């Protein structure tokens, strides 16, 4: 790949990095659409479920959703992973305090699949697949991580385990290969 193509790639990666808070923004957009649509329902049929159609009062339903989100949110990493790494329509509305969303990006030329393994997902190569960000070499995933120290690595094509080339290395190659280390602190990952 020549210098031009690589630069184009870098630009595309930079451009396509997820915008922070996109999920919350999306939810706000949906809410706005709903409030707009109530006034326009006549012409187009019932757009959004009339709260009256639900047996449960909407406030209680919303509280249930929020409760489940909060309870499930730490496990959200695995949950999001079961959706193939794509951000689900039902987003994690608020991260539980003590965790931060972290985006991982890995360049793997010629790979057909890349996944993330680490302390946070039991080192399961199937738990957190990365999504290809461009037509070429860049793969990404975004997951919430608790504050603290996390060891991790990438698995390419299900068999090659690689550390993150730009991250601090773990000092001991416990099982023959070194892992990378990530520190997630207050409001940031380091």
């Amino acid at each position, binding site marked *: 790949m020549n210098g031009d193509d690589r630069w184009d790639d870098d630009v595309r990666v930079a451009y396509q990095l997820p915008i922070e808070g996109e999920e919350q923004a999306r939810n706000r957009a949906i809410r706005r659409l709903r409030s707009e649509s109530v006034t326009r329902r006549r012409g187009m049929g019932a757009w959004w*479920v009339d*709260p009256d159609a*639900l047996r*449960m009062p*909407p406030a209680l*339903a*919303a509280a*249930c*959703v929020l409760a*489940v*989100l909060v*309870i*499930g949110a*730490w*496990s*959200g990493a*695995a*949950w999001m992973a*079961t959706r193939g790494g794509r951000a*689900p*329509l*039902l987003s994690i509305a608020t991260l539980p305090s003590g965790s931060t969303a972290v985006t991982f990006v890995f360049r793997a030329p010629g790979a057909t699949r890349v996944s993330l*393994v680490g*302390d946070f997902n*039991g*080192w*399961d*190569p199937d738990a957190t697949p990365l999504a290809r960000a461009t037509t070429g070499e860049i793969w990404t995933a975004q997951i919430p991580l608790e*504050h*603290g*120290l996390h*060891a991790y690595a990438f698995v390419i094509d299900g068999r090659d*385990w690689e550390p993150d080339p*730009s991250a*601090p*290395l*773990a*000092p*001991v190659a*416990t*099982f*023959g*290969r*070194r*892992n990378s*280390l990530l*520190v997630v*602190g207050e409001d940031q990952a*380091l």
Partner: protein
Amino acid sequence: MRRLLALALASLLLAPGRASGDESEEARLRARLKPELATPLIEVVRSAAAQGLPTAPLVARALEGASRQAGDAAILDAVRRYAAGLAAARRALGSTARAAELDAGAGALMAGVPEDSLASLKRARPSGSLVIPLVVLSDFVARGVPVANASNAVLAATRAGAADPALLRMRERIHERILRGEAPTGASREGLRELLMKTPGTSKERGSREPREKGRP
């Protein structure tokens, strides 16, 4: 709204249990490992918990070993050594050390950094978190900087009052130098010098307090 509720409930069903207590950690180990391995491992984990040491890193190591298809003996050995490392880290860093500090400290100790160096680091930064200095130290050792040089670099930088972002930048600079082919020892020395020049309140005099290396004028 119905859809949201359905998705939310589905998420709860799909989500694995949170490893927040002994029971769920033990359940995870039993779920992933054969009983012959799970049982002794759980003993190690329980023993660590009884000493007030963090158990999540131990479980993580075991699961990593399983995923990497390491042998049972290797996994058990690794976890035992890590538990010992955590205990040693706590001796060196003190009982108020946080889990992440103990985790990072254990790694450094297991790589050959002496307990004294950790204790010195604690004295250099008595109340702030030591996770980043320990991670930076570990990284140097992992990249071939001799333990003494690595410890000295991080200690000197921390004593000079370098904050975590500065330490991380130092790490990156040193990493770049090593990638360009510099010997790790020289790279770490130069990296430290750069940091000390940029750290506010560091005078040349202070910089020269760094111990001389053998054989150099």
